[in-house]
């Protein structure tokens, strides 16, 4: 009996030692390799975009390793990312973040996919004071918690459609009308993300003193908004704004055509995810879509070159992409932030690296990156693209526009 117990204790001690050994084997820097960690959605409802993000991370890691790696203290290091599949569930994401930090000893984190997962993981990285650079969580609420170790390279949700308001004001002035005369009809889904988008639109609209004539909320299982659109037909607003993930985009575009709504300007989100150009063809023309990034933008950096170069390299590196999702581009940008921060910190001390990230000020193919106190990127604007003859062309903000905006929108027959 006693012998058995002793054996048991020994076995436990041994396995504990092994676990520790395994843990230290995957510490922050192993030989000449810096280990980054990420819980990412490789299965479940976010799987498609999760894989886009992972491909973005991998492409940047490969590129950095090929072009001399990360130089710290006169030595060149390679990057490597350890992934776990969070199955698109927040609880699992938080668990895996805990595991990456506690068990695998990862001290530098890349973000997961989606605001929801980021919201679940950020408290964990914050608790262990592990910096995380994320690229796929846009919710404004992530940056009102006072997190010190969370940084995001993408524009936050309230900026998604705000540039449509600026564009409407610009056009009104050009036509000799006052922005105050602009009437806006809007329909937003009743979920945290879409309501953030709405808050940004409301802020900008009230800045110009525009009138909001319709302010409908869309239900979660939206499949019909013809009643809202009939109201639009009756009230004839100058600008129609709809945001409700891909179901909102698909429903809006289809029913705007079905009801022949003749609104001079229409701005929505999630055009790409809803595949509106494939599905509705000319019916999607002249609709404005917001995007984080487009390959036609004139952004540029030393590593990837221009946005178009990145686009080309990405398509060569991964099969099955006809267009490069912005989810991948911003994921690559997050890895670039890490490289830049390590080199400026010239150290692997966590606090020094965190401060270096906070002081980031760089231009990338994805756009300029500079973090606010809260950790969100304030240097990069959202861009508006207009679907012109089936292709997405950047029309606003005017600084980045490649094509003039088609105004007023022609209702298709």
């Amino acid at each position, binding site marked *: 009996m006693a012998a058995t117990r002793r054996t048991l204790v020994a076995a436990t001690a041994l396995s504990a030692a092994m676990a520790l050994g395994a843990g230290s084997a995957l510490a922050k820097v192993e030989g000449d390799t810096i280990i980054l960690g990420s819980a990412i959605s490789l299965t479940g409802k976010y799987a498609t975009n999760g894989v886009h993000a992972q491909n973005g991370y991998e492409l940047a890691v490969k590129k950095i390793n090929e072009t001399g790696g990360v130089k710290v203290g006169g030595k060149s290091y390679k990057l490597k990312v350890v992934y776990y599949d969070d199955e698109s569930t927040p609880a699992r994401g938080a668990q895996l973040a805990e595991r990456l930090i506690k068990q695998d000893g990862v001290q530098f984190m890349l973000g997961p996919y989606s605001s929801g997962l980021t919201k679940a993981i950020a408290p964990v990285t914050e608790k262990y004071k592990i910096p995380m650079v994320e690229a796929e969580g846009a919710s404004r609420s992530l940056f009102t918690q006072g997190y010190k170790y969370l940084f995001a390279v993408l524009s936050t949700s309230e900026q998604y459609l705000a540039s449509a308001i600026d564009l409407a004001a610009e056009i009104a002035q050009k036509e000799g009308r006052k922005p105050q005369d602009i009437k806006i009809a809007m329909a937003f889904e009743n979920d945290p993300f879409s309501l953030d988008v709405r808050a940004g639109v409301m802020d900008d609209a009230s800045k110009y003193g525009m009138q909001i004539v319709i302010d409908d909320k869309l239900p979660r299982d*939206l499949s019909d908004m013809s009643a809202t659109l009939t109201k639009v*037909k009756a009230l004839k607003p100058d600008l129609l704004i709809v945001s409700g993930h891909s179901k909102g985009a698909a429903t809006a575009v289809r029913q705007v055509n079905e009801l*022949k709504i003749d609104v001079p300007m229409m701005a929505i989100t999630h055009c790409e995810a809803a595949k509106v150009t494939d599905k509705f063809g000319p019916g999607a023309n002249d609709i404005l879509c917001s995007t984080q990034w487009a390959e036609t933008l004139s952004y540029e950096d030393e590593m990837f070159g221009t946005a178009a170069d990145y686009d080309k390299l990405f398509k060569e590196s991964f099969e099955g992409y006809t267009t490069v999702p912005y989810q991948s581009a911003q994921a690559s940008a997050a890895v670039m932030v890490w490289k830049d921060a390590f080199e400026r910190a010239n150290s692997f001390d966590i606090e020094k690296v965190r401060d270096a990230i906070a002081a980031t000020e760089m231009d990338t193919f994805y756009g300029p990156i500079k973090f606010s106190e809260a950790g969100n990127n304030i240097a990069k604007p959202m861009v508006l693209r207009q679907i012109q003859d089936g292709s997405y062309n950047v029309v606003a903000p005017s600084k980045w526009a490649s094509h003039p905006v088609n105004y007023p929108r022609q209702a298709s027959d």
Partner: protein
Amino acid sequence: MLDNLSLLTIAPIFNVQLLLDGLFIGAIFALAAYGLALVWGVMNVKNLAQGDFVIMGGYIAFTLAEWGLHPIIGLPVAFVVMFAFGWIVYVLVIRRVIDRDLFTSLLATFGIAIVVQQVLNQIYGPEVKTAESGFEIRSILGNQVTVADIKLISFLLAGGLAAAIVVFMKRSRMGQAIRATAQDPRAAKIMGIDTDRVYAFTYSLNAAICGAAGVLITMIWVIQPFYGITHSIRSFVIVTAAGFGNLPGVIMAGLGLGVAEQYSGFVLGAEFQQATVVGLLVAVLVWRQIQQSRIRQVVQ
């Protein structure tokens, strides 16, 4: 809210749009609800997977459209495929719960609904899908009202299908057997009717009807793996309001629900469109309760 109401009085033309849209979609609601009335009335099974069968039919149309076929071909295809699917589900699950109490069949059909949702999610992903009919969209009444041909065609097809089912129930041997079983299963059994087969057929016919409704829904609205529940609730509202054996009632309730949804969407806002359905369910249940208690008092 009052603004929207006054809008309807100032520009009454928009009532026409709301009415038409409501009637067109209401006909499809009535179709799915009739299937539920059948299963409920004949087998006393409250099929919570009703809406998920509708969505399955929708995905059949979507798949055909992906293959380059016209989604309207989905109507016969979905009818046949869903009939077969209904039979399988009956043999695997429903047969075992049909004699049990209310909760067992509710739980079983709820389970079927979850499985259908998850499998659709695995195959098609969570993004919404549509199938485009590519038909004309007509403007009437000075371009103020539009009528999409697909809605009109769906309306007619739904009507035709309902008529065909009524004739089938009245004239065919199986239809008569179904009605006999609904009236008294024991007597039907004694008369030599294979009630097990009748049940299987009824459940499959319901799945087929739902599938057909789903094909029409996909060409008018959008579908997503988890949208079944709203269609289930609609069917329950309609059947509860109309009763089982009452086809004209089901049709009227279906059309009425379609119109009610459009009006509440216009007056109260899109988020209340579906809330209206649930609100009506509560109202109908309260009304039924009052009716029942009156009858009970009379009996006393």
